[in-house]
């Protein structure tokens, strides 16, 4: 309990401590700003990634749950579309009146791809049908003006069903509200060409599709958080360590350890609150930018969505601010406890602290090694678990970070012994200087190491990925020109080419060979799956890179129609290998099991795809349509001329309401790589953010360190050092720190790339790739680390040039 006297003493001492804190930060404004900045950046990155992720997830869910939530089931065609008249039969003759027909396509408007939803406003009330706000006036327009479209939500156009259909009859789906009994009854009378599914299962498929993506983003935000926490910890430790002598004096004049401890925690909370408040503002701004990138990626990979408003929920705010405050408090706890516990006399000696720090180094390193071993074990034994893969990756990073201080100590000791360098006094002083201040700098070095290694790891991963995709495109695009009923941009399945086209194209001069493809959505292993039915030309190159087996033999058996090919993601997710069989629900023979002839590398469909030879398809399905034609141009013929002719024909058909796309393999290749690059824009942005956070940390740590050495520099000046010599000393130390961090980041970066490529990518998307090491990556990493460190030394270097020796000696 607090008696009156004790309270008075407490008030007095606490105001004394408050004033001392105030004086410290006003005398070291850089320290204050950098502390706040690193806290703010930490909060901002966590919040921004979370915001973008959640908001994108929201728009994604909206696009999945396209019609209203009251609908429970949907009827789709096993292949193609539902005949229009079936809807009349269902509604009028069978009496299922809670039914709404939907025609869903994509439509380009002003160069932007939209999901176009054609609905019958009379089947289900409009606003319910679209699951969104439509004013009476807009709805009236929709009803009264043929061709009118409403952009009811970003990326989603709603129109009348007739407008959406155009010349192509048939429905994409019929949505229904059914009880379980009704569903069973309907199921029983449905013709075999149609199937009934509950919405729950459809949403599940979509959720699975995007889970990997959001997990990846989450991991990025965690990495930023980890680096941010390192920095906050570093900054807070540093600000306490710098004031050790001040605290010693306070202790001597009667401030108790408990008071000091409480005061430091309070100070941390104030800094944390102010810093994270700025971080929230920064995070919202940043989140807006990220959201655009995230939605772009989702649109490229899955379905067309458009950035909506940010969903700033209290939970998100609490999470980011909470994590930051926790990091700040944890970071303050250790130095505050230490400052409160040690005796006033001891406190004044820097050396004891350094010695203690170095003793702890060995223990930390041991812990680090254990963590890295645990990481390896976890990765090896976590099967297909993506989240555990990430946990493993983080354990690796943290473990590695803990080993860094010990490695640094050995490295510095080693450097001192390098004979050639021992001749240089400045060199010896630089090495010793870094060594002596390890307790304050090692955390900054760890942060820089982790940040730079993330760059290394991600660069290698993206680079390898891009090279693999590029190789794969080279291999897959074996024809010179492609004509298709819809664009390949969205992984959509519909449209049939007019058969007259085939004859027309064949008759073109300069055409050597044709292959045809039919895209369909079939039920494979009870999952709807995009399927390509292929009729290769006799001349065609294979176009497939098989993971194992004799390619020529596989190809012969495929041509003979003996079985099917599956993509690597399909094989991974379904646990299938060459020689296994897969179950396919066919139109003519019900469920059949077909042998897997080979597994091919494919980066196009994350959920996997299946390729059927035409003869096999025609045995089990009645469909004889084609959706695309691949054209091989004879040697000497001009591809451009043929392309122009095809495009002229496509123009005619476009007017007849049969959209058609003609593209050369180069177009497709370029477009695919463009999409690829766009997909990784967000990754690159996040990488830059992580670097920025680390940079600010290193900057603040080094600058504080050099500024603190003002007195030491003054003594050196008094003993005959010139300012340029001192400046070289400081820059040398900075460069040394940068060099060490850069070098240390390389092994970690490489390890990260291995985990990203072999574990994370496969578990996320089911595909594997060759690791490509790029010579530039380590050079970039070294440059990045050194530049960060050198930049941090610029301000102190300038100060040295201006400082007066006497003021320095006075400690001013």
């Amino acid at each position, binding site marked *: 309990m607090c008696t009156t006297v004790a309270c008075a003493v407490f008030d007095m001492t606490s105001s004394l401590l408050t004033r001392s804190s105030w004086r410290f930060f006003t005398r070291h404004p850089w320290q204050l700003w950098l502390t706040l900045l690193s806290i703010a950046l930490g909060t901002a990155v966590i919040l921004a990634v979370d915001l973008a992720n959640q908001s994108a997830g929201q728009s994604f869910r909206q696009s999945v749950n396209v019609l209203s939530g009251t609908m429970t089931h949907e009827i789709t065609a096993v292949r193609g579309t539902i005949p229009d008249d079936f*809807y009349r039969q269902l509604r*009028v003759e069978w009496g299922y009146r809670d039914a709404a027909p939907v025609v869903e396509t994509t439509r380009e408007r002003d160069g932007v791809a939209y999901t176009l939803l054609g609905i*019958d406003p*009379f089947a289900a009330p*409009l606003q*319910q049908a679209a699951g969104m706000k439509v004013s009476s006036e807009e*709805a*009236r327009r929709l009803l009264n003006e043929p061709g009118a479209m409403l952009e009811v939500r970003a990326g989603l156009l709603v129109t009348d069903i*007739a407008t959406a259909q155009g*010349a192509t009859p048939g429905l994409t789906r019929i949505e229904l509200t059914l009880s379980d009994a009704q569903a069973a009854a309907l199921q029983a009378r449905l013709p075999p060409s149609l199937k009934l599914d509950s919405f729950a299962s459809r949403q599940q498929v979509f959720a699975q599709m995007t889970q990997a993506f959001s997990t990846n983003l989450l991991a990025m935000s965690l990495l930023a958080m980890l680096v941010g926490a390192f920095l906050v910890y570093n900054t807070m430790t540093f600000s306490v360590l710098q004031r050790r002598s001040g605290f010693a004096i306070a202790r001597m004049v009667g401030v108790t350890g408990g008071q000091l401890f409480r005061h430091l925690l309070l100070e941390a909370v104030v800094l944390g609150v102010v810093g994270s408040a700025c971080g929230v503002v920064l995070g919202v701004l940043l989140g807006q930018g990220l959201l655009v990138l995230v939605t772009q990626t989702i649109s490229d990979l899955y379905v067309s969505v458009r950035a909506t408003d940010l969903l700033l929920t209290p939970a998100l705010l609490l999470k980011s601010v909470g994590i930051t405050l926790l990091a700040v408090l944890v970071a303050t706890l250790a130095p505050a406890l230490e400052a409160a516990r040690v005796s006033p006399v001891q406190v004044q000696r820097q050396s004891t602290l350094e010695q203690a720090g170095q003793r702890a180094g060995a223990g930390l390193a041991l812990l680090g090694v254990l963590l890295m071993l645990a990481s390896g074990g976890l990765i090896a034994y976590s099967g297909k678990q993506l989240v555990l893969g990430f946990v493993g990756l983080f354990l690796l990073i943290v473990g590695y970070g803990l080993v860094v201080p010990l490695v640094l100590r050995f490295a510095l000791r080693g450097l001192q012994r390098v004979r050639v360098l021992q001749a240089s006094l400045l060199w010896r002083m630089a090495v010793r200087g870094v060594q002596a201040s390890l307790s304050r700098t090692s955390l900054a070095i760890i942060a820089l190491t982790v940040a730079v290694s993330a760059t290394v790891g991600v660069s290698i991963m993206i680079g390898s990925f891009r090279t693999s995709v590029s190789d794969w495109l080279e291999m897959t695009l074996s024809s010179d020109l492609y004509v298709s009923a819809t664009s390949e941009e969205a992984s959509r399945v519909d449209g049939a080419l007019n058969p007259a086209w085939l004859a027309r194209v064949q008759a073109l001069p300069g055409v050597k060979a044709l292959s045809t493809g039919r895209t369909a959505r079939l039920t494979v292993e009870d999952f709807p799956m995009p399927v390509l039915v292929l009729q290769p030309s006799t001349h065609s190159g294979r176009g497939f890179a098989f993971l194992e087996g004799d390619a020529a033999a596989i190809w012969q058996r495929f041509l003979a129609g003996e079985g099917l090919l599956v993509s690597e993601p399909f094989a991974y997710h379904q646990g299938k290998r060459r020689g296994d069989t897969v179950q396919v629900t066919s139109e003519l023979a019900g469920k059949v099991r077909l042998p897997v002839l080979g597994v091919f590398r494919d980066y196009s469909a994350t959920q996997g795809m299946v390729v059927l030879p035409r003869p096999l398809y025609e045995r089990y399905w009645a469909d004889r349509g084609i959706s695309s034609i691949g054209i091989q141009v004879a040697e000497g013929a001009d591809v451009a001329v043929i392309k122009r002719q095809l495009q002229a024909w496509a123009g005619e058909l476009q007017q007849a309401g049969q959209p058609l796309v003609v593209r050369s393999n180069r177009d497709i290749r370029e477009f695919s790589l463009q999409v690829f690059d766009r997909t990784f824009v967000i990754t690159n942005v996040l990488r830059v953010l992580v670097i920025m956070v680390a940079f600010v940390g290193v900057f603040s740590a080094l600058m504080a360190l050099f500024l603190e050495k003002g007195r030491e520099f003054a003594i050196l000046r008094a003993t005959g050092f010139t300012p340029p010599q001192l400046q070289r000393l400081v820059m040398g130390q900075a460069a040394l720190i940068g060099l060490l961090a850069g070098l240390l980041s390389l092994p970690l970066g490489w390890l990260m790339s291995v985990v990203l490529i072999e574990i994370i990518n496969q578990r996320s998307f089911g595909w594997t790739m060759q690791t490509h090491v790029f010579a530039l990556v380590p050079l970039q990493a070294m440059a990045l680390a050194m530049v960060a460190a050198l930049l941090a030394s610029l301000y102190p270097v300038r100060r040295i040039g201006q400082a007066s020796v006497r003021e320095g000696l006075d400690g001013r």
Partner: protein
Amino acid sequence: MGVRLVLLAMLLLAGCSKTPEPAALDLNAALGGVADAGFTRALAPRTFQFPQDHAAHPDFRNEWWYVTGNVHTDSGRQFGYQVTLFRIALSPDKPVSPSAWATNQVWMAHVALTDVQTGEHLHDQRFARGALGLAGQSLQPFRVWLEDWQIVGDGAGEFPWAIALKAKDFTLNLQLRPQKPPVLQGNQGLSQKSSEAGNASYYYSLTRLQTLGEIYRDGQRFTVTGESWLDREWSTSALGKDQAGWDWFSLQWQDGHDLMFYRLRNKSGATDPYSAGKWVLPDGTAQTLGREDVTLKPLRYWQAHSGVKYPVAWEMHLPQQGQHVRIEALVDDQLMQTGITYWEGAVNIRDVASGKLLGQGYLEMSGYE
């Protein structure tokens, strides 16, 4: 019948009504506001031909087949019913589109059953587009339908007509056979609704249709007979600026006389000069009634949940016809709470002096606030 014009006029108004817009989007509001440019208008009397004119006139914006009737079982249990199919064209021409869904015609149906014994009034409504066989009209065989609600005639387009429909709470299976030839309303079938040219409709009635059939409700079957009334009207018109609503009577005397009279109400509550009607003699000949030929006085009001009061009992005086009668609802609450709210219900006719029951009919009231 002009009354139904009110319904459609209200469709127009619904978009700008003062009442807060319901959360669910109102198709009625959405269907309103179609500009009349490009549609054919009723400007001069025309020659009616039957059965051809039973069929649709798609050049006009609006059209309806409006059946109301009073039927009863052998034991005397009474029912009133209403079956209405509205055709609404959203544009003068069919859109140029190869899609089977493309149409400019939208259909709306309102059905109701009044169970006089229990005092219940059951009603239901549907919308559908006039495409893909979901809703439409044909002459040979005669058929007007919205999904499985339909009025069907024989192959030549002649009577009898059969009503077959299964609504939410009841089912109707009725056969209609006319007892009198069609009555051309207004001036040889041109029914002028306001001073503006073209603000008129073509309008004929079959004022007396012998009715027999079955009504199902609550798992019970009732075999019924009685009399019905058919109104056919098509137009591209709207209410005059001043006109607020409408009281419409279709009454059948037991002695064989029929009366159609609509009182157009101005916003001030006064009777509009364009109010009109016909007195139909038992032999089918008709006398035109102007506003001054009929005196109407509300006697009793019924208040709906919304607070709106509807006059459910009236005193009607036809001096030239020697009729002074009291017209009263068989059930007070016969409110149609469809997208647009109006009161439409079965009534009986009694002599004011003696209180003797003279006949029955239907009353429609709209535009009350």
